[in-house]
C-alpha cells in the first residue's frame, strides 16, 4: 500500500513537473523561434520606416514651393507650349521649303567637287544676267571660293551657294541699285535633338547694299516672309554723302535655315558623326548635349 502510494505520488509529481517543463519549453521555443525573430523584423521594419520618413521629409521640404504634381503639370504645359512654338518656328524660318527638289539635284560625293564648280559658275552667270535685266550692279564674285578642300563636303558648299544665290535674287527682286559686297560666312550648325541625329544649318551671307530707304524696307520685308525667310543677324545702315542725300549703304548679315540635315553634319568629336570642316557648332549646343547624355545615363526617364 505504502509503495503504491509513493509510486503514485512520484508519478503525479513527474506529471506536474512535465506539465511545467512542457509549458516552459513551449513558451521558450515560441519566444526564441517566433517572437524574437518577429520583434527583430519589426525593429528593422521601423528603422526602415524612419529612413523612409527622412526621405519623405526631404520631399516635403522641396514641396514647400509647390507640390511635385503641380510643378510637373506646369512643366508639361510649358513643354506643350514649346513644342507648339517650335513647330510654328520651323514652319516660319525654313528658307528651303523646296529642299527635297534641291537635294535630288545635288551631286553625289564623288563628282560633287566638279559639280560645285559648275554650279557656282552657272549661278554667277544667271545672277549676272538677271541683275543686268533688273539694272542691279553686282560685285565680281559671289563671295564663295571656287576651290574645295579635300576634307570639305561639296553638298555643304552647294547649300551655301544656294543660300547666297537666293539672297542675291531677293535683292535683285527688290530692285536694289547696287550690291557692292557678297560674302558667304561660315555655316552654323544647330542640333535638333539630343544626340544630334538631326541638325539644322544656318548659312549666313553678308551683303553690302547701296539703295534708297524705300528699297531697303522692301528688301527687309522680303527677308521676313515665309518661304524666303532669312534671319537678320546684323544690320548697319548709313547715309552716304552730304546731308539730304537719299542713298544709303546697308551692311547686313542674313542667314538661310536648312532643316532635315543629318548624316555628315554632326558636331566635331561625335562618335557617330564625322567631323565636318567649316561648320561651327555653338558651344551651348555641345554643352547641352554632353549634359543630356550624362543625365540620361544617371537618371533614365521611366515615364
Amino acid at each position, binding site marked *: *500500500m505504502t509503495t503504491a502510494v509513493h509510486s503514485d505520488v512520484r508519478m*503525479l509529481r513527474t506529471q506536474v513537473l512535465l506539465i511545467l517543463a512542457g509549458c516552459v519549453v513551449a513558451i521558450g521555443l515560441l519566444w526564441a523561434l517566433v517572437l524574437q525573430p518577429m520583434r527583430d523584423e519589426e525593429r528593422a521594419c521601423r528603422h526602415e520606416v524612419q529612413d523612409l520618413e527622412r526621405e519623405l521629409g526631404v*520631399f516635403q521640404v522641396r514641396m514647400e514651393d509647390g507640390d511635385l504634381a503641380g510643378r510637373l503639370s506646369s512643366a508639361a504645359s510649358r513643354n506643350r507650349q514649346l513644342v507648339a512654338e517650335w513647330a510654328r518656328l520651323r514652319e516660319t524660318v525654313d528658307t528651303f521649303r523646296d529642299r527635297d527638289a534641291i537635294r535630288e539635284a545635288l551631286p553625289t560625293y564623288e563628282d560633287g567637287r566638279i559639280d560645285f564648280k559648275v554650279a557656282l559658275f552657272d549661278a554667277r552667270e544667271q545672277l549676272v544676267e538677271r541683275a543686268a535685266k533688273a539694272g542691279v550692279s553686282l560685285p565680281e564674285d559671289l563671295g564663295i571660293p571656287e576651290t574645295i578642300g579635300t576634307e570639305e563636303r561639296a553638298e555643304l558648299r552647294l547649300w551655301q551657294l544656294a543660300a547666297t544665290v537666293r539672297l542675291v535674287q531677293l535683292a535683285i527682286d527688290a530692285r536694289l541699285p547696287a550690291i557692292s559686297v557678297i560674302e558667304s560666312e561660315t555655316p552654323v550648325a544647330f542640333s535638333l535633338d539630343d544626340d544630334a541625329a538631326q541638325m539644322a544649318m544656318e548659312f549666313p551671307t553678308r551683303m553690302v547694299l547701296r539703295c534708297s530707304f524705300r528699297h531697303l524696307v522692301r528688301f527687309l520685308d522680303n527677308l521676313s516672309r515665309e518661304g524666303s525667310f532669312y534671319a537678320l543677324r546684323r*544690320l548697319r545702315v548709313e547715309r552716304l554723302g552730304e546731308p539730304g542725300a537719299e542713298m544709303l549703304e546697308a551692311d547686313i548679315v542674313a542667314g538661310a535655315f536648312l532643316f532635315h540635315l543629318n548624316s555628315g553634319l554632326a558636331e566635331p568629336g561625335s562618335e557617330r558623326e564625322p567631323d565636318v570642316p567649316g561648320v561651327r557648332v555653338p558651344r551651348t549646343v555641345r554643352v547641352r548635349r554632353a549634359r543630356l547624355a550624362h543625365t540620361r545615363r544617371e537618371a533614365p526617364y521611366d515615364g
Partner: protein
Amino acid sequence: MIHRETVGLDLGSHSAKVVRAMRVGGRLMVRDADWVHLPPDMEERRRLLAAFLADKGYTDVPIVLGIPGKAMMLNVVEVSVGDPRTVADVVTTEQERVEGLTEQDTAADHVVFRSAGHRYILLAMARADAVGRAASVLSALHEEDVGDIVPGSMALYRTVCELGRRTASGSTLCLDIGHEGTEVVVGRGSKVLFSRCLSGAPARTSEPASEPALPGEVAACLESFHAAFPSPAFTVKRIVLSGGGSLAAGVAVAIESATGVTTVMLSHWVRKAPMEEIERYGRAIGLAACGVRRGGAGISLLPRALRESRILRWQKPYWLLCGAALVGLMLLVLLGTLAELRWDREYLRLRQVELAGLHALDRKLAVTEQLNEALEERIAPFRTAVHNADVLRIALQSIAAAKHPDDWLSLLADAAAYSGVVLPAEAPLDAEAPDRMARREGFRHVIVEGYTPVDDFSTVGRMIELLHEQDGVVAADLLGDDRLRDDPARDARWADTGCSLFVIEMTVEVP
C-alpha cells in the same frame, strides 16, 4: 482540499452508514443516506462495502472517513500572549509527549483558532495503525480520489454545528452513544475544544437508560471541561445526543438530571431533519460536511503521501490549465506582435509606394524640365531670328514716328554692328563669340545716329520722349560718350552743316 460533493462513511462495529451531501449556497444539503450491515470478517466487510457503494453509485464521489475516538486524541492547547514557542514547537512537543506516553506512532494535524479572545491550537493525534487501516479502506474503495480522513468526534460536532440552531453564547456538548463506546465532544461556535472517549459500557437500545455509569461519566467530563476552560464564556449550555444508543428511552433525561444541563436529541436540535432517526447518521453527516466544509482547511489525518497524491491529483488539471493559459498568453502576445508587424509592414509598403511615386514624379519632372531646357536651347536661335525682324520693324516705325523733321539720321544699326564687332573667320569653335551671343540673344538695342541743327538738342529730347511713348520701346536715351564710334570721314562730311551729332540707344522688346 474542498470537494463539491462528498460521501461521509461512518464505519461502526456492526454497520456502516453513508451520507451523500453537497453544499449549495453555503448550506449543507444531504442528498442521500443509507446504511448496510457489516459482517465480522474484515475482507468480507471491505468487499461488501465496495459493492454497497458501487450499488449506490458513489464510486466517483470522494469518501470521507472518520477515525473513532478510541484511536485518537484531541488536545486543545492555549497559546498565551508572549509565549516564545512557535506553533510548530508546541505541536512537536505535544506529539512527542503523547508518543512517549503511549509508546505508539501517531499521525497528527493541527489548526490554530481563536475563541472567546484566546488563541488555541487544536492538535489531533491518531494512532498510526488506525490511520493506515482507514487509508487502506479508502484506497480500496477509490483509486483516483481518496477523499479524506478526519476525527470522528469533530465530524459529529460539525453536524451539530451546521444543522443545529444558532446559539448565541456558551458551549455545546455532543454525545455520540454507540455500540462500542461513547464519545464526548465539546465545542464553542464552530470550534472543537474538548473531546473524550468514555470507557463506560455502551448503551443498548434494548436496555433503556439502564446504565447508570454514562450520565456520571458525562458529568465528570463536563467538570473536566469546565476545569480546562473556566471562563464563563465556555460554560456548557446544552447537551446534544446522537448515535444509535441515544435513541434508547430515558437517556436524555438521565444525562440532564446528572449534569443539570439541558439535554436534547439531535433530531430535536437540528432545524430541519433531513431523514428519519438522524441520530444514527449524525457522525456520517458530519464526515460528509467535513469534505465539503467551508472556512478554510480543517483537521485532516490523511497520510502525507496520500494527501500529497490527493493534492497533486487535484492540482493536476489546474497545472494543465495554468500551462495552457501561459502558452495561450504567449500565443496572444505572438498574435499581437504579428498584427503589429503586419501593420508596420503595410505602413512601410504604403510609404514605399508613396516615396516611389514621389521619386517617379521627381524624375519625370526632372526629365520634363530637361526637355524644356533642351527645347528652349533649340528654339532660341530660331526664335531670335524671328524676333530680330520684329525688333527692327518696331525700331523703324518708332523712329519714323518720333524723328523731328529738321533732324537728319545718318546711321541705324544694331548694337553689335554699331560697335563694329566682327567675328574673325578663324575664331576658335568653342569661343563664346559676340555674333553667337547675338544669335542667341538677338537684337535688343538699336543705335540711331543723326545730326540736329538745334543747338540745345530740344528736337532730340522731343524725339526721345516720343520714342518712349512707342509700343515696344522700353528705353531710349543718348549714348554715352565712351561708346561713341570714331569716324573722321563722317565728321568731315557734316562739318560744314553746323549741325550737332547725336546718338540714341533704343531698347526694344517685342510685346
